[in-house]
């Protein structure tokens, strides 16, 4: 499968984007809505005008029309052809690409079986649920045996459970077919779950490219840091492996238990919104619960940011204004903190 290279790409949204997506890599375009992620995807597919050059596998494809590029593009909206049955939707790509009828039928059957669409094959899109439509759209894209897969927020309209299931399906497909893949999302957690590398885009400018850990622990500038929620990053002095994928780390005089398998932990990170603040001692086991002192209170729109001293560490917590009012917090007050175990990231 080819790599994708963008050289000095500019248009009405994007500004001088340079990026290389490696062969078989799963790259996620992450950024706020309207930042130019979809436009970049359209540029790669040949659906938008641009200046600069797009290369597949080292060869420029700027003059090759969309219909002749081996790109599978899954759009954000559920864009199945309404006048074709599921089976015919899937067969559309192979037919359009001149695949022989026998091979086309075989390919359609394979895709129907691969995505468990047997019972839906003769239905029209209007009789499908959102999740079913997405599976059909995915099958239709895969039926053309794409060398590059472009996925534009394909799960944004689905419920949590279906989206979670389909994320796993997409990862499975990407691994099985080893397709160079670009996935667009504005959801940080989705990006972390899916990506080999993440490319942060803001106002048409590529801000940072790296693994989710690199982005989270070394954000390149204020824009990236803002987007990922300005996490608290604590340096670990020591760590001790507990049973069952748990590690106890010591950071600035406090012990924190984190979920982790594998190597030693150098740093941990937790978002301000994932630090729970209470004036009363919370019930439950004494795990990742600490006493801290409020050193500053900053109002930021409808949110209140609390600066806290915890051992030798300075942390920031974030809570909605109405909850802040209810708790009656003031500078110098001692409060109880719970670090939400599930959302502690490590590197």
């Amino acid at each position, binding site marked *: 499968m080819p790599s994708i290279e963008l050289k000095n790409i500019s248009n009405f949204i994007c500004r001088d984007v340079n990026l290389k997506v490696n062969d078989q890599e799963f790259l996620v375009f992450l950024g706020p809505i309207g930042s130019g992620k979809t436009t970049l995807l359209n540029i790669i*597919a040949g*659906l938008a005008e641009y200046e600069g050059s797009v290369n597949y596998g080292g060869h420029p494809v700027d003059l090759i*029309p*969309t*219909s*002749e*590029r081996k*790109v*599978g*593009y899954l*759009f954000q*909206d559920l*864009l199945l*052809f*309404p*006048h*074709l049955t599921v089976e015919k939707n899937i067969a*559309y*790509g192979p037919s*359009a*690409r001149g695949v022989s009828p026998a091979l086309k039928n075989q390919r359609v059957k394979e895709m129907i079986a691969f995505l468990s669409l047997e019972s839906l094959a003769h239905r*029209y*899109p*209007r009789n499908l649920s959102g999740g079913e439509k997405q599976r059909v759209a995915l099958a*239709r*894209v895969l039926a*053309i045996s794409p060398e590059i897969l472009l996925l534009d927020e394909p799960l944004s309209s689905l419920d949590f459970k279906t989206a979670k299931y389909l994320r796993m399906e997409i990862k499975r497909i990407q691994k099985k077919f080893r397709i160079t893949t670009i996935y667009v999302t504005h959801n940080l957690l989705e990006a972390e779950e899916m990506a080999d590398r993440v490319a942060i885009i803001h106002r048409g400018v590529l801000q940072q490219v790296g693994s989710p850990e690199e982005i989270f622990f070394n954000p390149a500038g204020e824009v990236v840091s803002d987007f990922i929620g300005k996490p608290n990053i604590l340096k670990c002095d020591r760590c001790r492996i507990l049973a069952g994928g748990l590690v106890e780390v010591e950071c600035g005089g406090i012990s924190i238990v984190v979920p982790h398998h594998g190597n030693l932990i150098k740093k941990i990170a937790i978002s301000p919104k994932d630090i729970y603040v209470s004036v009363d001692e919370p019930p439950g086991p004494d795990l990742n619960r600490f006493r801290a002192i409020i050193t500053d209170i900053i109002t930021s729109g409808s949110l209140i940011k609390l600066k806290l001293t915890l051992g030798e560490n300075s942390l920031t917590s974030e809570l909605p204004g109405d909850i802040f009012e209810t708790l009656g917090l003031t500078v110098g007050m001692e409060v109880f903190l719970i670090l939400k175990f599930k959302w502690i990231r490590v590197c």
Partner: protein
Amino acid sequence: MIKFNFSKIKWGILPIAVFLLLWELVVRLDLLPGNFFFPSFSEVIRQFYRLVVSGILMENFLKSLIRVLIGFTAGSIAGLLVGVLMGWNQLLHRSFHPILSLLYPIPALGWLPILMLWLGIGEILPIAIIFICSFFPVLYNTVTGIRGVDKKLIKVAQTLGAGRIRLLATVVLPLALPNIFTGLRLEAGMAWRVIIAAEMVAIPTGIGALMMRAESLLRIDIIIVCLMVLAIMCFSFERFFIYLERKFTGKWQN
């Protein structure tokens, strides 16, 4: 297979039956002055039978039917072809859309005086009127249908490998069908209305001309027979295109 919904048909026919019964009663009970101008329904049916047996009705009906079929078919095909070209080609659309916008609102009968001078009074005149009556609406609806196809679906087809011709044939035209059928359905009925009017004004044969002859002889029963034929033909043509639309698009349209 067509499934009849007898309950629906019953409720559709009942008001017509009541109306015909009232009509018959009002005339028979002499509730209206001047019976001559208000023949009963049974008298109209008797006259219908006489006209059929004598061959007069069939002769005039066939003349009108052939004019409608030729004019409507030619106008619709021409409208469809030009509509596809204009809808699919941006340059053609930009060039000809202003002309279409100016010509489309002119009623078909508005062309009658100029066509009488250009073509003379003969068989070609009513066909030309029906052609115009069908051409512009079908053209307009085809252009609207093609240009109304979701641009994102076109992008999807392109990424799947479809070139322009395949895109037009397999995505754009099928999705424009509901609009095209709307044009055909409306104009199928309109063609009958226009042919009757044209025959009444300028052509000596056909159902419209028969009505004018009946009017000069004060034969209201014959006029009503002609109006009934017209109503049935308008209704049948419209239903035919509704049937075709459902057959081709009913399975997938919301």
